[in-house]
């Protein structure tokens, strides 16, 4: 049975979904009918209905949360972080663009939830005093879920786009919030993990995206990115493919997409990238609508190029990223890649 995703569904219909339960969900609350329903409904209840306390029954007490800016742990931090964000952006709406999941209730579901938020900066918060500006920004939350609890989360948000829309300078905001010791330690361990990982053993030909989407992801990461065979992006992407990239960039076509990857990779000449998770789901019951792929990755390298993040600092940099692909007729028709460029700036601005 195909679990319905966000395709063609209005949020009011998702929330009013009478069920029945569509897949085994041992330990989940009775009013959740499938993993997509769980993610969309609890997001609405916590963030839009402001039922912040619901976090207590939806996050494990010791849940680790990984962001580009460093790690956090525990449900208390999730509650306080949610309150702070809502104090700054009280009318935030969280429009679910996709929930791309894998797993099951025994081993855990991994849900990759892409959200476009609209919000007004009405209150003081992590980005400074209220500006009154209305903004929109992308977030992807990768959540490992078991028995109604999120037990681990990887959260990436386009913070540089938020900062730009608020009329602020990303470099100034990054400089005003230096990294914690925990963040520095995590970046160091991630750097070692990525550079210690063996190169992905992939061949040259592009795998069939429909027959083996996992192999396609590994080919893209290992060959196209890993071996810098950027020309092969013209096989992987439709000619008029779109890419939503950090800082709110909206790119179209092979030239702009390859251009963005070129600038990003040139910023970290020795960059290596590892694939941390892949999930694949059909877009709808109609195969012609294609498949959605979510893949989370970590990149590590040294800041030795000026293309995107200022003059080369030589500093080691770790990037936690999540990419979502809509595959139609065998090629990428649309991509959203999210990572925190403020976290990159904090790393390149670290004193030597």
């Amino acid at each position: 049975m195909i679990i319905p995703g966000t395709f063609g569904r209005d949020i009011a219909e998702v929330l009013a979904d009478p069920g029945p339960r569509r897949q085994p969900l041992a330990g989940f609350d009775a009013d959740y009918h499938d993993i997509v329903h769980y993610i969309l409904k609890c997001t609405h209840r916590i963030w839009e209905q402001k039922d912040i306390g619901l976090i207590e029954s939806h996050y494990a007490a010791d849940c680790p949360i990984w962001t580009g800016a460093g790690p956090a742990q525990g449900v208390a931090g999730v509650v306080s972080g949610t309150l702070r964000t809502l104090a700054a952006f009280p009318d935030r709406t969280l429009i679910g663009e996709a929930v791309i999941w894998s797993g099951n209730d025994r081993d855990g579901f991994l849900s990759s939830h892409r959200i476009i938020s609209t919000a007004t900066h009405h209150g003081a918060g992590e980005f400074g005093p209220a500006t009154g500006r209305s903004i929109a920004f992308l977030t992807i939350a990768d959540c490992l879920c078991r028995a109604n609890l999120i037990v681990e989360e990887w959260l990436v948000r386009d913070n540089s786009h938020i900062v730009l829309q608020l009329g602020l300078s990303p470099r100034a905001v990054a400089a005003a919030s230096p990294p914690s010791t925990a963040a520095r330690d995590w970046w160091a361990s991630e750097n070692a993990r990525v550079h210690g990982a063996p190169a992905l053993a992939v061949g040259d030909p592009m795998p069939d995206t429909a027959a083996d989407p996992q192999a396609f992801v590994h080919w893209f990461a290992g060959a196209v990115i890993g071996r810098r065979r950027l020309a092969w992006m013209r096989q992987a992407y439709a000619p008029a493919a779109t890419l939503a990239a950090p800082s709110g960039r909206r790119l179209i076509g092979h030239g702009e997409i390859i251009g963005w990857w070129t600038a990003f990779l040139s910023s970290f000449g020795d960059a290596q990238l590892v694939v941390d998770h892949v999930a694949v789901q059909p877009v709808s019951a109609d195969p012609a609508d294609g498949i959605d792929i979510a893949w989370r990755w970590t990149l590590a390298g040294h800041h030795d190029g000026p293309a995107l993040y200022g003059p080369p600092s030589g500093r080691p940099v770790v990037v936690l990223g999540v990419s979502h692909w809509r595959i139609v007729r065998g090629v990428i028709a649309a991509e959203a890649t999210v990572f925190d460029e403020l976290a990159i700036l904090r790393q390149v601005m670290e004193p030597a």
Partner: protein
Amino acid sequence: MSHVIARALGGDASAVLHGVQAEEGFAALVGRDAVLDRLRELAGQPAEQAVTIGNDAFLALPDAHLWARLEAGRIAALSIIADRDAGDANTLAAAHPCHRPLGELMSGRGQLAPMPGDGALGALIQAFAARVLPALAPMSSAMPDALLLPRTVLTLPDGAQAALCQLLGHSAGRRISLPVSLLIGPGGTLFAACHDPLALAAAPLRPFWPE
């Protein structure tokens, strides 16, 4: 039942998904309320063309072309190309800073000539590149390196083609990237071209985001 875009123009919220996103020029609208508010401003004109093929829908008004991407028959994404007066270009530009350009327009061709496209649209794109289409002169004269990238092409019942393209080029150090809409006869004759003079005039005036 009337065309899905016509229903949206008439304010029928059920024609539009709550999470709809629309593009107009270089600006984006997010959410049903914002999109219906904008469509309300375009309503009241008779549709000259309206077609739905698969998940793509197209509707032509006398001074606007609308392209929709459908999900389960409802509008999930919308491109609005309206013939807006260019007089307020400075105001529009100031509200929409931009990034510096990344990448090239003609990917991977280097010194080679562009790959010829197929059919009537391909011929038209070549004619545009050769600057021999007076009807598209406002677009090409604004950018010496302008090109058209086809995004969605629909064959209409009368055999004509409707094409949503992206106009790409450079002006004043900015990457200009705007949707345009074309109606092409079976022989490659350009019936109509719809572009947004306001967005075209404003694009080179946009301030850069701080770096």
